[in-house]
């Protein structure tokens, strides 16, 4: 009986130790973690291109997260960290591309299309309205000819 109890106690202790090991490593700075998390969701993983750095499990993403964390710890601002990655991987790493001449089409194209489409629509509507309101030609010549044709047909 005592043996069973000791065994049970040991097992319990062992399970506690195990549970302790499974606990995720608590890092000191919760604010830093939150900041990094936010930054990483704005950065693209270059290996799996439609995932953010925060979501990706790729090897490179892990390395880049490490790099981003080290830069943040060394006191670099978010903009400086973004600049660091853009210098190496280009604007492609940013999910939010900057506005500059090469991205004008990307940023303003949809608006230009919408404005152009609305303009075209307006022109067409106006032309139609004009056609509808303008009185049909009341040339009596044409009407007389039409009557004549109908009469001929009836004969």
């Amino acid at each position: 009986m005592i043996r069973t109890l000791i065994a049970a106690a040991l097992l319990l202790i062992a399970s506690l130790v195990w549970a302790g090991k499974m606990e995720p490593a608590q890092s000191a700075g919760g604010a830093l973690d939150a900041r990094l998390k936010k930054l990483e969701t704005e950065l693209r993983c270059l290996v799996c291109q439609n995932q953010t750095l925060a979501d990706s499990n790729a090897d490179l993403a892990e390395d880049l997260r490490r790099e981003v964390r080290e830069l943040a710890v060394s006191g670099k601002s978010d903009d400086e960290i973004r600049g660091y990655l853009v210098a190496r991987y280009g604007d492609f790493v940013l999910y939010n591309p900057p506005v500059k001449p090469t991205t004008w089409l990307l940023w303003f194209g949809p608006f230009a299309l919408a404005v152009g489409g609305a303009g075209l629509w307006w022109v067409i509507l106006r032309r139609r309205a004009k056609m509808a309101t303008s009185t049909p030609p009341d040339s009596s010549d044409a009407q007389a000819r039409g009557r004549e044709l109908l009469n001929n047909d009836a004969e």
Partner: protein
Amino acid sequence: MKTFRWSIPLAIFVVLVAFLWIGLGRDPREVPSPLIGKPAPAFRLVKLHAPNETLSASDLKGKVWLLNVWASWCVSCREEHPLLVQLAKANIVPVYGLNYKDDPQAGRDWLVKNGDPYTASIVDRDGRVGIDYGVYGVPETFLIDKSGTIRYKQIGPITPQALQEKILPLVRELQQ
């Protein structure tokens, strides 16, 4: 006026098709490197075959050289490797290897098995120099000129076509 009317939608359609067609032919994995035309990032790393010696980018100033990023775990590296061995034999341009995130012993074994085209390989165990060079898909190859400026980057394996049409002509031009 009548012909003008349908020519506008047609023109828009043609432009759209042209854009989509060009887009189809492009590889989304090939992200243009912002490093082209910029100085090659500095590094000082130990050599794969001489762990007591280091090599730095500035040691190679005055030479036109290729930096080939490779690893023993990299499958597509096998694809381009015979081409690199051939290039090294032709003695046109020195090829330096960046053994990227690899176990050095595995790297050495791999070179014994597949041939060693590198004037020297350097060990980037934790991939930090790789990050400085914007490496995201091994193999990658950089062409660096005498002043230490990156002039060309090949993402993925070097194809015979890329070698003949792009890399070698540029090497000849830069060596003058």
